[in-house]
Every structure is written in C-alpha cells, then in structure tokens.
C-alpha cells in the first residue's frame, strides 16, 4: 500500500503570518496526507534540509511579505544543488501574477493565490504526486 502523500509546509523569510499555512496544513491532514509544518522564520537552507530528512513528496512554500522571489528561487536552487528528486514544489500566499510565471519557470509547479480552496490544493496534489 502506498504511504500517504507527505508534505512539508514551510514559511521562509521574516513573514510571521501563519493563518494560510496552518489552514492548508490542517486541511491536507484531513485530506489524508502527512504534513510537517516548519513554523516561521526558516531560511531556504533549513527548508531544504527538513525536506530531505523528512523525505517529503511535496514542499508547499508560503509567503505574504513579498520576499518570495529571492527566497523561493533559493529553495529551488538548493534542491537542484542537493540533487533532490521527486519533490513537487507549490507556493501560496500573496504572489502577483507576473511573479507566478517566473516561479513556474523556476520549477514551482503551481501557485495558489488568495481565495484558493484546500480542496483544490488537495486535488492538485493527489493528481500530480505519487508518494514514495
């Protein structure tokens, strides 16, 4: 039997607003996934280290303060550097349309903006992720 999809929900940078990340974490748990939440103020290095040790299938990055380009691209860079395979990365929070395309080019599979439902995130993950 396949293990449940394992997700790391991470907040990078200095932003301290947790509502979205926590609500998504609880929602994905109720959708049958195993969710590790990192809390706030993580560096990209800490996020990638956690993702590797936890051997997650998914990383969900949350940002509301606008620092997403620098922080998320550093995460993607580190994942490549550490040769981490088989991890789908998605993002959520306040991310302007123009940046969405840039993030997708970096390898972030989907960006869930304000008003996104847990149901849509869960569905997206179930469709696109095969757990390890």
């Amino acid at each position, binding site marked *: 039997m396949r293990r449940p999809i394992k997700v790391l929900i991470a907040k990078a*940078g200095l932003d*301290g607003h*947790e509502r979205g990340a926590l609500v998504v974490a609880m929602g994905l748990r109720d959708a049958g996934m195993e969710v590790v939440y990192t809390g706030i103020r993580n560096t990209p290095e800490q996020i990638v280290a956690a993702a590797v040790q936890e051997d997650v299938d998914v990383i969900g990055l949350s940002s509301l*303060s606008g620092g997403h*380009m620098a*922080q998320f691209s550093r995460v993607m860079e580190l994942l490549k550097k550490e040769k981490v395979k088989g991890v789908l990365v998605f993002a959520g929070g306040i991310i302007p349309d123009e940046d969405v395309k840039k993030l997708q080019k970096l390898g972030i599979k989907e960006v869930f903006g*304000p008003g996104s439902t847990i*149901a849509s995130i869960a569905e997206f993950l179930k469709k696109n992720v095969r757990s390890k």
Partner: protein
Amino acid sequence: MTEPREQPGKFPFTRGIHATMYRGKLWTMRQYAGFGTARETNRRYKYLLSQGQTGLSMAFDLPTQIGYDSDDPMALGEVGRVGVAISSLADMEQVFDGIPLDKVSTSMTINATAPILLALYLAVAEKQGVPWSKVSGTVQNDILKEYIARGTYIFPPKPSLRLIADVVEFCAKEVSNWNTISVGGYHMREAGCTAAQEIAFTLADGIAYVQTCVERGLAVDDFAPRIAFFFNCHSNFLEEIAKFRAARRLWAHIMRDRFGAKNERSMMLRFHTQTAGSTLTAQQPDNNVVRTTLEALAAVLGGTQSLHTNSKDEAIALPTEESALLALRTQQIIAYESGVTTEPDPLGGSYYIERLTDELDAKAREYLNKIDNLGGMLKAVESGYVYKEIYRAAYEHQKAVERKEKIIVGVNEFVSDRKLVLKTQKSDPKLEPRRRRDLAALRKKRDFAKVEKCLATLEKEAKGSENLMPILVESVRNYVTVGEICKVLRGTFGEYRSTHSI
C-alpha cells in the same frame, strides 16, 4: 419613549467615550502607508496630507520590525517590501523631511523595536526644534499578539515587557502627548479568531500591560489614559458595531474595578480601527470598495477614534496611489455626506444592537475568566492556548467557506470567468543594493568611538534595570543603527523561540 440607561461620554462608555462624539470632532483619518525608501514614503505622506488625511501612519519593513539593518543577511528579499526600511536616523530624517512634527500626529506600527523607533522619532523632532511635549502619536508596542498572530517578535516575554514599560514610564514624564501602547486585536482577528475572542484576547493583553506597569510602581492614572487600542472591523456589520460597544463597557469596568483607576480618562477605551484585510478578495477587486465602505461605516457607527480604510487592491500587493486615494475618499464621504456623525451611537437603543452588545460582553467575559484561570494572558499565550483558539477558528472558517456555509461574493459564489489583471505597485529590485551602499557610507561617516560607547552603555543598562529610552535616544542621535542596537539586546536578552503548533 424611555431614556437609554447608558449615555455617551459617561461610564461605562458603551455608547462612546465622548458626549458629542463626531459632532465635536471627527475621527482621525489615518491611512497606513510606507514602502521602499524613506524618500518615497515622504512623498506619499505629503500627498495624503495634502488630500486631507489628518494623521500619519507608518508601516515598516520586516527587517526594521525584527531589528535587522537593510544590509543584514537576514533581511535578504525583505527590504522595503511591506513598509519603509529604517536603519538609522538618516532614514527617519528623510521620511519626515518637510513635515513638521508639531503639526502632525504619527502612528507607528512597530512592536519589538518600538523603543528604538520612538527614539528615532524623538531625535528627528529634536533636529526640527520641536519640543517633545509637542510631539504626538502612537507606537503599537504590543508584543503579546506578536507571539501568536503577527510574528515580529525578537526577545522573550520578560525583557519585552520591560521594554514596553520603559516606553510607558519615559513618555509619562517626557512625551506626555504620546500613546505608548496600542493594544491590538486586529491581527488576531485577521489570523482567524471570532469577534468575542477579539474583544477578550485584546483586553487580556491590555490587562497584562497595565499589570506590568503597575508592578513597576507606576500609578494607574499616570499612564492608563495613554493606552490605546486597535481593532479590526470585519464584515458582519451589526455584530461589529456591538463588538466595539461591548469592548468599551468591559474595559471601563476592568480599569475601575480591577485596577482601581479614579481618572475617567483611564477607563475610556480609545481605539483605532482598520477595516479587515482578510475580507478583501483578489477576485473582482472592485467589490472590495463596497466591503471596505460597509466595514468603515460599522466602525464609525461603533464610535472609533481613528480609522484606516483598505484599498481595493490590497489582496494582491501594496496599494497604488489611485486606490489609496479612493480609500481615503470613502471615509470622507461617510464623514461629510452620510449624516451618521450628527448623533453619537445612533444605533444605541436598538433592540438588536443592545442584545448583541450584551451577548458579546458575556462571551468575552467567559474567555477573560478562562484566561485568568490559566494565570493571565502571558501564561495563556505561552501555553499555546490562544494560538490554538485562533487557528482552529481560522480552520473552521475555511471549512465553512468551502462548504458554502459562508458565502464570499466573487469567490465561492457569483464568480466571473473574466480574470482581471490589476496594475500593482511593484517593488524596486535595485533597492537592496542601494541600501547596502548607503549603510556602508553611513557607517564610515559617523563617529565610531561614540557608537561604541553608546553600545557599551546600552549593554550595561540592559543587563541592569535602567529605563533604556535615554540611552536609545543618545544612540540614535549618534547614528547607531537599529541592527546594531538589536544585536546588543539579542545578546543580553536572548531570542524568543516560537514553539507553538496546533
């Protein structure tokens, strides 16, 4: 027709803290603003003041709020994003260039680094030749909610409360027109708590701060009149009006009965309101103008002393000049055209509003009792009780929205296929490198011996029990930076480590 049992301007102030309310003086129209550079902020302030805004409200970037200079590695990607980057007196002087500090009142949304930013403001006033007794404004200075709903904490609770009391004590003597704490429920509400919880958790924070100052030896009536509050105004129109009334009544009783205040001004809950950011949608953004209008109206009918109205594009990014102006006009139309200002608490006496007020009063009391049983708000926060309450409420709300038990127009009902692309205010990518250069130049230019001396004194006094405000003012005068000050304080006080989870 029977006379209502409560009167505006009379204890317990349910119906308003002044007898005539807006008939005598309108609420302060105070729009939160600030982004990128000090120069841009200065320009935006001058613009808003010229358009009729009556008070300034300062937003700082996260590094400033969390005690990092713009060139600190921890600041990467965050400089100038959610507010203005202030690392030294040079930046602060630029923000208020041409803005006389005896003619405006400035509210600063700053918490962990409140004493430092206040010191900077006072140093600017000094340079302008404005005596501190003529300076007026507010620092938010409310650390408890940071630990659970906003995240810009630095130090652990005990030293943080010491710093808060330092500000209160110092201003009581030297800066008498300054509001030293703005106890906030806005953020906890944004994080997901209910209206009753917003009242209870906010007042509980207030109780903790008053208690701290009383324990320091300050007389309640000497500082309590300068404690202000900051509430959310959410979408349930009638409930929000009742919420403000219940909060006023509760606080009056708390101050008189629990703390023995004698001065009526200690018992008056004065508050600033911001319309709820979390009710704004990215979908069909024009709808947000309507939402903000209703929320602003509720705050006015609820008797707020000061109001910020959100701009319609705030679900996406910091507001453009056009949408910021419209937000201000919203308040002006309510103030000058709607007629609701002619009578204080115009909905008082309405069967439903009085009932809602009593209900919220009772529910909030239950929470306050629970918090007392836990040993006070500090313990309630540290134990994770408040955190769990807030985020579980947030999750319930999300589930209700996804089940369509709660409708959000344009989001889960009445959606449109057309996707609107908004013109959003972009952040300058050259900002960070520029800041690094400016700070490097500043550090070279100043008198480093004086800087070192100030930092040494700061460390010594931080380890002791002196009021730190004087050394902070002296430090910023000599262009010691925010980050340098916080490095010393972090070393002395330690850093708070958040351990909360659901």
